[in-house]
């Protein structure tokens, strides 16, 4: 809350400074951003862009960004497919954090958090959300919001703003981005407009329009499962309302598409994101919100991809939750994972740990031996060999 206030303070302080350089007057309706367009230097919009340029510079050098060229190229490719002539102006940053979020700054800095990638079923769903963010960018919603905040603020607030803005330099990139996301809570009209743009862009790009409503439905279920734990920044700024789902469903029904034209991009999505799924699931598990994670695992299991890996993480969820009977469920999940074949070596280690606690020593030893066989240079090899000695 304090950080959000600090960033709000920065924006308001900027608006005050910008007010010195910009002639006052009703901004009027903003025209769409043209491809390659930058705001004139002596405008409040240019000030906002400069502030975002600084945030972007911090983000680039922080350790949070996923630097893998293949994944970055894949997501940037979707953005370019959607944004067409705006492609060159939009820079994608994939941020490794299990929280579900995507956002677009007015200067063309797009963040895609790995939590969003993990929760999308296919490329069409991810494309819809990216298209929605492109909608905010092209329609210059951040600038609209910025001007609204300035017009609604009173003198007392401005004084507080100047005092608060002094601390902004200490705010780290991830906190800044999270706080900025909460500041850029667009109006319902802006959200509706971005939904429409996102929908149009995905249809023009040839994606299945029915997927737009599906990702919101999944997010509604996710929100219901996490209602009493950590509220998502994304949900705060993009409320997944029933009205939103109904509108997108109705739009999809009206959209005329010929058979064979609808692209889910599922295979491409799985090929590009599959190598990162284990990391993303590990990050998700660390949130220790078992109900929401269970929902996600159910969806992934139903999709049929990487069954061994999904079963392994199902076992991990049981092992970490540690409720009565979870040890038995974990053993069953690890054994199912091992049978599926595409299981990471760590599944054998986890199985060994649960079996060791259950005093099934022979089976625990077999699992640990298998782990060391598959991972001869395991970082915890010395510890596992110690367990093996104790189990003799």
């Amino acid at each position, binding site marked *: 809350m304090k950080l959000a206030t600090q960033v709000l303070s920065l924006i308001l302080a900027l608006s005050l400074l910008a007010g010195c350089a910009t002639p006052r007057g009703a901004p009027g309706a903003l025209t769409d951003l043209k491809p390659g367009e930058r705001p004139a230097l002596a405008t409040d919009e240019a000030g906002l862009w400069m502030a975002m340029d600084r945030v972007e510079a911090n983000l680039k050098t922080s*350790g*949070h960004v996923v630097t893998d060229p293949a994944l970055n190229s894949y997501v940037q490719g979707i953005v370019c497919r959607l944004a067409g002539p705006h492609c060159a102006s939009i820079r994608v940053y994939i941020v490794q954090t299990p929280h579900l979020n995507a956002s677009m700054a007015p200067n063309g800095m797009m963040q895609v958090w790995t939590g969003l990638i993990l929760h999308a079923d296919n490329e069409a769903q991810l494309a819809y959300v990216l298209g929605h963010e492109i909608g905010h960018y092209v329609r210059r919603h951040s600038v609209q919001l910025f001007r609204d905040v300035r017009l609604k603020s009173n003198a007392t607030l401005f004084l507080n703003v100047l005092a608060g803005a002094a601390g902004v330099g200490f705010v780290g990139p*991830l906190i800044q981005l999270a706080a900025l996301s909460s500041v850029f809570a667009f109006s319902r009209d802006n959200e509706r407009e971005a939904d429409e743009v996102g929908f149009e862009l995905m249809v023009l790009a040839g994606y299945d329009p029915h997927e737009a409503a599906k990702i919101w439905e999944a997010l509604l279920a996710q929100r219901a499962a996490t209602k009493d734990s950590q509220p998502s920044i994304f949900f705060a700024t993009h409320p997944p309302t029933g009205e939103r789902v109904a509108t997108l469903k109705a739009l999809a029904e009206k959209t005329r598409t010929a058979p064979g034209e609808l692209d889910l991009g599922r295979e491409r999505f799985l090929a590009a994101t599959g190598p990162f799924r284990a990391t993303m699931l590990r990050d998700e598990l660390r949130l*220790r919100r078992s109900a929401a994670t269970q929902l996600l695992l159910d969806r992934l299991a139903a999709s049929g991809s990487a069954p061994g890996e999904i079963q392994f993480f199902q076992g991990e969820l049981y092992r970490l939750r540690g409720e009565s009977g979870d040890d038995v469920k974990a053993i069953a999940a690890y054994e199912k994972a091992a049978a599926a074949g595409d299981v990471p070596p760590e599944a054998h280690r986890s199985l060994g740990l649960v079996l060791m606690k259950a005093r099934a020593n022979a089976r625990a030893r077999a699992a640990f031996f298998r782990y060391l066989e598959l991972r001869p240079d395991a970082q915890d090899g010395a510890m596992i060999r110690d367990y093996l000695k104790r189990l003799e």
Partner: protein
Amino acid sequence: MRTLPLLLLVPVLVIACAPVKLIENTRVSIGDTYSVDPQLRWASVPARPGLDLWTVDGAALDSVMFIKGVADGEAVFRGPIRSGAPDDDKRPKFRTEMTPSDIAELFVDSYALFRNQKLETAGLRPEKFGTEDGFRFEMTWVTPAGLEMQALVAGAIIKKRLHAVVYSGARAHYFPKYRDAVEKLLTSIKLQ
């Protein structure tokens, strides 16, 4: 109703008012479980319940944290963490039957509560903690401010409570700076 938030603030204010104290380079007792030779002139700074925190250059850059006996069912980090963080009762808990592998995971998940990312452990191995059978591992992560951190964790379960020493610092400069001194501090542990 209005008094409740004020009452909740009291422990925070008490912690905030606790003085920074210079640690003399003579043998120091950590709770009533063990003692160490500090090796350096650390400053003891205010910390969460159940922890002692020493630093040379500031706790955000380098620190030795003594975790002084986490009981079964307790979280490693108690007290307020950040807005939106799970309450104490929903945080990862220590269990007396935990293996060192589970404890390494407990640390990672506890550090994740602070929105640290890219948390990894390495080199988990058995090691004596004083005369007790214990464990040791290293941990790396990126703070919400984007700073890359490294830590060395050594600990043991003593009388059903988790005791650990966590030396952490900014990976680029501060962690290597005092590492040798901390290694000596760890070998100086004597159970009381």
